[in-house]
């Protein structure tokens, strides 16, 4: 199952991913799913669990789940059943969560991930089911700071539709797990069924991890929660794998437990052990009829599916002649793909756009921990920059300078080039004068150049190019400079 060993240990990882569906109303009530409003302003009688209220399923949530199932080539449950998962918690108003268990809407499917070395791997999906989210307990707002006081309950989120995607334990290390998580992110955002905002918990990842010696049965697993970025996920997995190996190598035993990861400190702590686990007493919800999805409906939804990451990747290779790896990176997130395609269109050069998006832009976003959707340089601006590169207005060195200025909010590339006088020197007469001057100022180097053979001259010309660029503050076209120098230096 695992692709590589870790100090002689095989790592086994499975993911449970909660995806918040971007429907306007909740899964069983007509209340809005809007966030950021006053607590309990979107809590209807149903969300409050008022006596006598009944759920009515949101058909768009059903359709979104089916869309996801189709995207991962899964069996779609023609008949799926909502069940009640019973437990007491103050932010669970009815005392049960309505979810699916025995008959989920999405059956077995698969997702292909591509790893950094270019290899592909298939992660099997066990199933995906629909369920309602719980509310939120607000401990801090009502505390007196000494551990006393009241807990507030905000039920705005209660009843928000989720799909929980359960993978098989097919991942063997953090890289694979993150690649899988990214791929799911790309799929649901491409489908438009989730906004993918992990910082808001709109996509939540629970990672099940165990380790074993090759050939041995599966080890005891732990579940790590609260991973609200891919980076944290990677770190948390590495942390937990190390911990489990340490425990086992010290002769200890892994306790089946749920662990909470803290990204700020890169630590995790036990939240609850198996002993604390509830008996959820699942049974089919008698207030809801089984959900039936017809062949016709499935056919319609299939026909309406938007372009998915794999198809987009293939198209990038075909249409833009990108390498498979580049195409994979650019198509791996709907936001990146949209940005790239817009930049390529505006700049009229997909390869340049690809290089910039994966190079300069990615580095900058990464260093400032920004999402591409929030990039200070818009796709249109990057496109303009590419245009100026292509028509020779600026050199690639100057382009980086313009990009930097644009990132800092100094305006569009054209305006920056204009304001800073960064236009490449294209007047041959003016450039010739400077070239002549440099040659006149460097008699020894000229001598040396002329005495060298062809191969050595190629290296030695660099000195003169450097001097010209220096004198023009980088605005000269390097190719043009090279040409002029070769002519004038010829013995």
């Amino acid at each position, binding site marked *: 199952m695992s692709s590589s060993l870790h100090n002689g240990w095989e790592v086994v990882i499975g993911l449970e991913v909660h995806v918040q569906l971007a429907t306007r109303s909740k899964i069983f009530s007509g209340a809005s799913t809007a966030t950021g409003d006053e607590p309990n302003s979107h809590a209807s*009688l149903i969300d*409050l*669990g*008022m*006596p*006598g*209220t*009944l*759920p*009515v*399923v949101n058909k768009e949530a059903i359709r979104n789940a089916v869309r996801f199932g189709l995207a991962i080539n899964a069996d779609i449950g023609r008949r799926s059943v909502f069940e*009640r998962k*019973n437990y*007491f918690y*103050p932010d669970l*108003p*009815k*005392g*049960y969560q309505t979810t699916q268990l025995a008959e989920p809407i999405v059956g077995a499917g698969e997702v292909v991930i591509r790893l950094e070395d270019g290899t592909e791997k298939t992660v099997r999906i066990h199933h995906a089911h629909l369920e309602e989210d719980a509310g939120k307990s607000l401990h801090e707002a009502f505390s007196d700071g000494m551990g006393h006081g009241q807990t507030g*309950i905000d039920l705005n989120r209660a009843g928000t539709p989720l799909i929980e995607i359960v993978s098989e334990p097919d991942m063997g290390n953090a890289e694979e797990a993150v690649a899988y998580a990214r791929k799911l992110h790309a799929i649901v955002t491409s489908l438009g069924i989730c906004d993918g905002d992990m910082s808001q918990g709109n996509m939540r990842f629970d990672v099940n991890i165990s380790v074993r010696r090759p050939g041995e049965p599966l080890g005891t697993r732990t579940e790590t929660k609260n991973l609200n970025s891919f980076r944290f996920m990677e770190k948390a997995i590495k942390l937990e794998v190390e911990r489990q190996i340490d425990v086992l190598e010290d002769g200890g035993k892994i306790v089946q437990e749920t662990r909470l990861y803290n990204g700020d400190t890169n630590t995790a702590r036990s939240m609850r052990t198996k002993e604390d686990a509830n*008996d959820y*007493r*699942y*049974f089919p919800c*008698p*207030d*809801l*009829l089984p959900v039936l999805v017809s062949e016709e409906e499935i056919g319609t939804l299939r026909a309406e599916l938007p372009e998915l990451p794999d198809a987009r990747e293939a198209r990038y290779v075909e249409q833009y002649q990108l390498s498979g790896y580049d195409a994979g990176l650019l198509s791996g997130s709907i936001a990146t793909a949209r940005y790239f395609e817009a930049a390529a269109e505006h700049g009229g050069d997909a390869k340049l756009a690809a290089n910039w998006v994966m190079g300069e832009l990615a580095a900058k976003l990464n260093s400032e921990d920004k999402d591409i959707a929030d990039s200070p340089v818009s796709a249109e601006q990057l496109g303009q920059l590419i245009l100026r590169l292509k028509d020779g207005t600026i050199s690639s060195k100057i382009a980086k300078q313009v990009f930097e200025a644009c990132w800092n909010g100094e305006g569009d590339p054209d305006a920056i080039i204009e304001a800073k006088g960064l236009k490449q020197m294209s007047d041959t007469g003016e450039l010739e004068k400077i070239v002549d001057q440099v040659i006149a100022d460097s008699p020894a180097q000229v001598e040396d150049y002329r005495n060298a053979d062809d191969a050595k001259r190629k290296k030695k010309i660099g000195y003169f190019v450097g001097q010209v660029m220096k004198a023009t503050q980088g605005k000269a076209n390097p190719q043009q400079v090279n040409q002029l120098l070769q002519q004038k230096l010829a013995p």
Partner: protein
Amino acid sequence: MHDKTLTELKAGLQAKDFSARELTEHFLDRVQARDGELNSFVTVTGEQALAQADAADQAIAAGDHRLLTGLPIAHKDIFCTEGVRTSCGSRMLDNFVAPYTATAVERMAAQGAVMLGKTNMDEFAMGSSNETSFYGPVRNPWDTERVPGGSSGGAAACLAARLAPGATGTDTGGSIRQPAALNGVTGLKPTYGRVSRWGMIAFASSLDQAGPLGLSAADCALMLQAMAGHDDKDSTCLDEPVGDYLGALDQGLDGLRIGVPEEFFPDDLDGAIADNAREAMRELEKQGAKLVKVSLPSIKLSVPAYYVIAPAEASSNLSRFDGVRFGYRCEDPKDLEDLYKRSRSEGFGAEVKRRILVGTYALSAGYYDAYYKRAQRVRRLIRDDFARAFKEVDVLMGPTSPETAFKLGAKADDPVKMYMADVFTIAVNLAGLPALSMPSGFVDGLPAGTQVIGNYFQEGRILNVAHRYQMATDWHQRIPGAFQ
């Protein structure tokens, strides 16, 4: 006025023999004067009733006659009524003022009904004697030392005593039909999904169904006509056209095939009860019906199956009563667990706790297959039995209850004996069929009822059978001596 049926009162209002206000005042006065003996009302909504009556009088003056315009109705306290306490017979909801109104109540109001108040009931509809109510037992107007049956005991008792001319109830395992039988009134449990459950506090969601209790089958038809119909707010409420119940009442019975299940006349059944039901069927035979022997072999399993399924659903339905958002909350909870434990221990009565425990057990890991799943299989067998029978016959008949009203406290210590009181009614809920109980005479001076079961959505047919029976008999017109 109080000895008249809803149908007669409707005619009286239309003929302007009396006003809706006079009618409402009359019944409010009667409740005020006599309910102390019965305890059939938990809340009387006099002011609102008079306001609704005045609105009805204005409507009548304007020629706007709807199905129930100006007719006083008592609603079981299981239906949420906006701005009015809705207790469900429980301390847990003693302080609960519902923020919205149940669809069944709203539909009757839309047809001009006047709400007199909320009737007493077994706590959360769990009981067959009305002794589990937080507000104390209801007494049977035929003998106030006896129970009125349950759980819609308040509804049946107030009707029998003529404190209200019409009432609503709910029936999960016989809770409309059994009290109707024990009080000498008519009660109809419609097909599951015929009347919306929105706003009806859930006991066992897959079995609960609201229906009318009245002084005659015609009255029940009138009320059902208003209550029935699809409701977008209840996913289990079926989108079937509502029949013309009033129009179907007078149909002749010639050729009607009445199935007589042998299981409804077991060897150990009280002979007088069996004779009473047979006598009622003979009356229908006289009108041209044919009696056909049938068998429903699986219904002997209905009581055990019911006492797994109903508590299982109840254990989950009642989880929302946790002291957090509404209802009873214990004093000074130490922590969350203490809040849950004490609020629920203090807020629920013994029978409710018993059923929550039974249901929790039945759904627990390791027991689910043995209890809940097996009970669901039994449920399918019962449904199949009925389906087979309805290929041969139009309706099924038998006694509603194996006994007449028993003494208060007689079964208080023996829940299983109490559960057996529902032996003839429960299978109907498990199958989801419509059934009614009609008064069919007296055994030892106490009312006995006969049950008429129909196929799905055949409410019109069973009301027709009961109506024809009532045209030929006067059992339904008898009034307890003390409440003449």
